[in-house]
């Protein structure tokens, strides 16, 4: 297994230019979409089958250290979770992990059942009507296998999106959080950097300037499959209860005869 690659998105450096969103669309030939105006500059409201990098514009009253309105910008992307709900859900094996730790959907194998779409705790995976398959950020799978980094990281003019080996990026990120805290951004925090944390850590992790819920990110996302055992046991219990009832109904030789 090669060294794990990662993308570190430092939202404190994002200027909302959306070069990343455009570069992603260009490199992956994702095609035109009708704009979805959300009341702000953000377009679209959420990931789609043709938008894998999405710049979020969050207005946070009193978000700045001096109490002024802050415009929190975040270039959101598939998190390439170390424990990925989409991957565990896929019944065809189309969703796989590369040797770099990134998560990819094989477009030749996917049969479009959409279970992965419903299994991502972040709502990243989307269904494409034209191909009939599920789509999401590929971590520029073709580029990373040819010595290049993802298109979004390459295009970012402020180095808000950094690409490299995960362990090195995590160290850089930790230092950056301390610097920001020193500057007065007391809520500066990493999201998904800790491989002992939720979902085994995210291979696309973030530096946020406010708590996750401010960015509509789940504070403690979990693998949806963790419930399979309990839910199955409860179903077995129901089967026993129901089966027993039917058994008893048929064993008693028709209480009171055929008119019972």
């Amino acid at each position: 297994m090669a060294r794990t690659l990662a993308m570190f998105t430092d939202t404190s450096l994002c200027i909302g230019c959306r070069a990343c969103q455009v570069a992603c669309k260009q490199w992956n030939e994702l095609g035109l979409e009708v704009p979805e105006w959300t009341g702000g500059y953000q377009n679209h409201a959420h990931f789609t089958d043709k938008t894998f990098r999405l710049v979020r514009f969050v207005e946070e009253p009193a978000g700045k250290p001096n109490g002024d309105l802050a415009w929190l910008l975040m270039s959101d992307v598939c998190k390439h979770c170390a424990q990925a709900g989409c991957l565990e859900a896929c019944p065809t094996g189309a969703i796989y992990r590369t040797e770099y730790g990134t998560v990819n959907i094989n477009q030749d194998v996917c049969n479009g059942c959409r279970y992965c779409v419903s299994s991502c705790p972040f709502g990243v995976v989307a269904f494409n009507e034209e191909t009939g398959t599920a789509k999401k950020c590929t971590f520029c799978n073709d580029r990373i296998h040819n010595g290049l980094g993802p298109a979004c990281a390459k295009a970012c003019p402020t180095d808000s999106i950094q690409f490299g080996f995960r362990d090195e990026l995590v160290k850089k990120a930790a230092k950056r959080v301390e610097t920001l805290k020193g500057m007065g951004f007391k809520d500066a925090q990493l999201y998904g950097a800790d491989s002992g944390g939720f979902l085994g850590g995210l291979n696309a992790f973030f530096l946020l300037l406010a708590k996750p819920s401010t960015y509509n990110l789940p504070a403690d996302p979990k693998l949806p499959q963790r419930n399979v055992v309990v839910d199955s046991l409860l179903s077995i219990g129901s089967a026993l209860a129901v089966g027993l009832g039917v058994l008893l109904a048929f064993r008693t030789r028709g209480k009171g005869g055929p008119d019972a």
Partner: protein
Amino acid sequence: MLKSPHWEMMIVWYFFFGGIAGGAYFTAAIADVFGTARDRAVVRAGYLLALPLVAACGLLLIADLGVPSRFLNMLSTFKFWDPMSIGAWAVGVFGMFSFVSAVLSLSPSETAARVRRRVGLVGMLFGFFLASYTGVLLSSSAMPFWSDARLMGALFLASGASTGIAAITLALFATGHAAGEGWGKLKHADHYSIVVELVLVLALVVLLGAAAKPLTAGPYAALFWGGLVGVGLVVPLVLDLVASRARTVGALAAVLVLIGGFVLRYVVLMSVQA
């Protein structure tokens, strides 16, 4: 934030038919092993209902895929922790059991009956699975409400039982077997499964608390309370207990149970994906 998988009417029908197929099969299997020779009509009806229904299930599942021609790709993997993966296999295996049991149920011979009972005991496990696994599939996703519903699989199973038994009841009524001893036993079994289903529906709602809103409040509430709980469960139960001797009433009650079973799956699926 989260994305809907857009499992719509084809999947509603799949869940509904799968519940009936599984429920009819395991009822038939239990009647075959634990009942008497006079329950044969129940056994035959159950197995003969299950087969075309599970075939329809297979077709619906394949047709709903984004790329139907690739449905066999699901048989390239087996992830025992993944309801979608096991389900893909189980539908096929259950289909095979249904076929064998249906054929054997048409034979009057004692040898066929002996084989049929053994096959039924194993096949019924797959029947239980088919009726319930789709609930576990929903509750193991990340979707709000579904992911909170620990009892969804258990509830789907009870509904599979009540609708399967109701379907057999209607089959007996339609083919003139309503005067047999099996009818009374079916009615007992149906009362019991309706009560279990009612308990599970209420337990689900109570345990979900505020998360139950998509079902209990909002645009689907009328269908949920009126269509499922009222028309689909309470009314048929009361009808049966009050007018237990009238076959037509019994058949009507069965129709209502079937409607309720459809409504359950419809509201569970659609209320989250509006």
